[in-house]
């Protein structure tokens, strides 16, 4: 950024010094170019992002079932309904369980993979790619593979074949609530899909650590291993660690694909987005309730993100 700003400033200064005849014209041309480039995105942003948000806010105050042009104003009734709807509250609990499972596991796994790949002497590029490739896979495709092939509930599912080898009964992975084996399916599919991406972030950060620090530590008597990792590597990864935690939490908030494709709208594994989808865009078409729920959810996400920022000191992470 600095690189592009500096010459422009210099040019402007030069123009002023030369008493350039038509600085206004040039500026106008610049403005034209600005709008030329910005307008398509701005229009798209307004039309497809801000307008729906505003419209959604409007709908949340109306009885809007099966129509987005409602006429019956209901005040805060939709908000009251959503906040007292046990199914919506349950969906928030489902999400919380999901976040508690997926965020730390993703963090630990991607960090571990990064450290290992970073230490590998041969075929580093191969391992890096091999771990990263799942990121390119679609959630829908992966969910179907998980559902129909790996965690198929009948005896010829891969996981059940393994259990059978050890003499266990087949497990109906997606519909066993006690113990809740469906979490294994849901968590592992996302873990497989996203860990490689976070691994790359950690890997980049690891390679940015000045090797002299390790050398100095070695000179001071620290042996390579856990102690070095704990006292040097991990603290230096702080900005990346904070980013990974935030990004994976936000991604968890947006969870929809794997839940919907693995379990449709099953009562026991229905995160807020799946519930709201079913309410507003599924067969119920209740846009009023759905919008109220979406805005409540947005408020919750905003609050939690602010709190998380305070706790982890996202602003200080750049230090």
């Amino acid at each position, binding site marked *: 950024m600095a690189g592009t700003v500096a010459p422009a400033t210099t040019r402007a200064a030069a123009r002023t010094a030369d008493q350039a005849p038509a600085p206004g014209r040039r500026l106008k041309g610049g403005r034209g170019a600005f709008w030329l480039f910005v307008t398509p995105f701005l229009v798209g942003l307004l039309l497809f992002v801000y307008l729906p948000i505003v419209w959604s806010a409007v709908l949340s105050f109306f009885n809007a*079932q*099966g*129509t*987005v042009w409602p006429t019956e104003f209901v005040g805060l009734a939709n908000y009251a309904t959503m906040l007292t709807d*046990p*199914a919506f509250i349950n969906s928030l609990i489902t999400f919380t369980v999901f976040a508690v499972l997926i965020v730390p596991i993703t963090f630990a796994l991607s960090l571990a993979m990064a450290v290992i790949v970073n230490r590998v002497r041969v075929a580093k590029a191969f391992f890096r790619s091999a771990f990263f490739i799942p990121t390119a896979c679609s959630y*829908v495709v992966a969910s*179907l593979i998980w*559902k*129909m092939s790996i*965690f*198929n*509930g*009948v*005896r010829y*599912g891969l996981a059940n074949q393994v259990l059978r080898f050890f003499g266990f*009964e087949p497990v*109906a*992975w*997606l*519909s*066993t*609530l006690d113990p809740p084996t469906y979490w294994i399916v849901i968590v592992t599919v996302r873990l497989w899909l996203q860990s490689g991406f976070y691994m790359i972030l950690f890997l980049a950060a690891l390679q940015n650590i000045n090797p002299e620090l390790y050398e100095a530590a070695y000179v001071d008597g620290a042996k390579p291993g856990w102690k070095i990792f704990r006292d040097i590597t991990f603290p230096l990864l702080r900005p990346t660690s904070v980013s990974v935690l935030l990004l994976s939490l936000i991604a968890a908030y947006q969870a929809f694909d794997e839940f*919907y*494709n*693995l*379990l*449709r*709208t*099953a*009562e*026991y594994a229905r995160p807020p987005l799946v519930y709201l989808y*079913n309410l507003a*865009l*599924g*067969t*119920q*078409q*209740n846009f009023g309730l759905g919008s109220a729920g979406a805005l409540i959810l947005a408020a919750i996400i905003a609050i939690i993100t602010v709190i998380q920022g305070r706790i982890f000191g996202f602003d200080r992470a750049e230090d």
Partner: protein
Amino acid sequence: MANASAFTRRRLLGGALGAAALGTLAACGSNSGTGSQTGGGGGGSASSVALSQWYHQYGEAGTQEAAKKYAAAYTDAKVTIQWIPGDYDAKLTSGLSSGSGPDAFEGHLSRSLVASGQIVALDDLIADVKDDYDPSDLVSSSIDGKLYALPMIIDPQMIYFSKEALSAKGITAIATVDDLISAAAELTSGDVKGLFAGNTANVDLGGMQGPAIFSTGGTFLTEDKKVGFDVAKVSDVLVKLRTLAQSKSLLLGNDTDWWDPTALNDGLCAMQWQGMWAVPGMAEVLGDDGIGAFPFPAANATDGKPAVVKGGWQAFVNAKSAHVDEAKAFTKWLWVDNLEDQEDWCLNYGFHIPPRKSLAAKAEKLQSGVAAESVKLNTDHGIANSPEWTPAMQTALSDAVTRIIGKNADPEKELNAAVKKINSELAKIG
């Protein structure tokens, strides 16, 4: 697409039991099926009108081609078929609300379609042949006395079984839910499970949610729009079915769900909750003599009632179509007048009961074997859904059942909460 049976969904008439997990992608087909918007804008000859017609994805081979063939034979408009895999109802409802919906379509009547002005009344289409329909079919196709849906096909759903498996265990009669539970346990051995009712039936009962209620002598809603079941009786049967759910005699997590006959055909289960549409598919593998059928058994021997779900599909005309009259004319041509194509649709792929009584009477394929048995059981025990039963009510009931069966929740407490929610939905209708 040719071998699409694994990805098909079948739906109860009006009931949103599709809430059960499906092995299909979310509906994500193209949105290009709105022929009406590009159709001849006023004044042109009738044949220049373009209509679009939507179907859910039927599983039987040849159905899509048949639908296209019927449409192509219609001369008064150019009809384009959209064959929609995945979550048909969600795609349809969003298509209708957003104005990108079809001109004519199949679906399940629900009051919300009428309340939001999305469908037109079709009384005039059957005025000449009204007597040829079963009055109960017309009731379940009407709201406030107006016919909004044309019965297209009737799909009885019940329990089909392998005769060989049952006779090997000496099981002859399954009259009560207790009989069903013990039969399922007896029929379970090694790699064969006793009963398949859906991939997550151990938590939500799969296809048996409605039947569980009907087996107590109840219905979802009464004719005067009140909750039609007794909470105490339904609680009792759900407690029984909870033991079935936990008994390890249910087939779970299969590749295809209950509406596909593969599980029974492959010997993964001995009995399967299934629709009559699958009879040809089952007979092909097990032989027509190899399969039998019985209704969902009575909740108990004293005041319970056996139940068959009388499902099916209905034809509609989109009120927001640019060519309502043309779409009505096409719908009348295909689903009222055109007995030949109706017969083809009902008998040459999966089996369905034709709603026209005259046609059903001469449907030879439905007059022998297990198909005839299915038709008779439907006549004796069939319970059609009420169009007043909305998806919101279904979600409330389905969630309650899931908590009772899957999470051991207190049945009366959960059902009372569901009833409260259903009543609040009913209050909105007034």
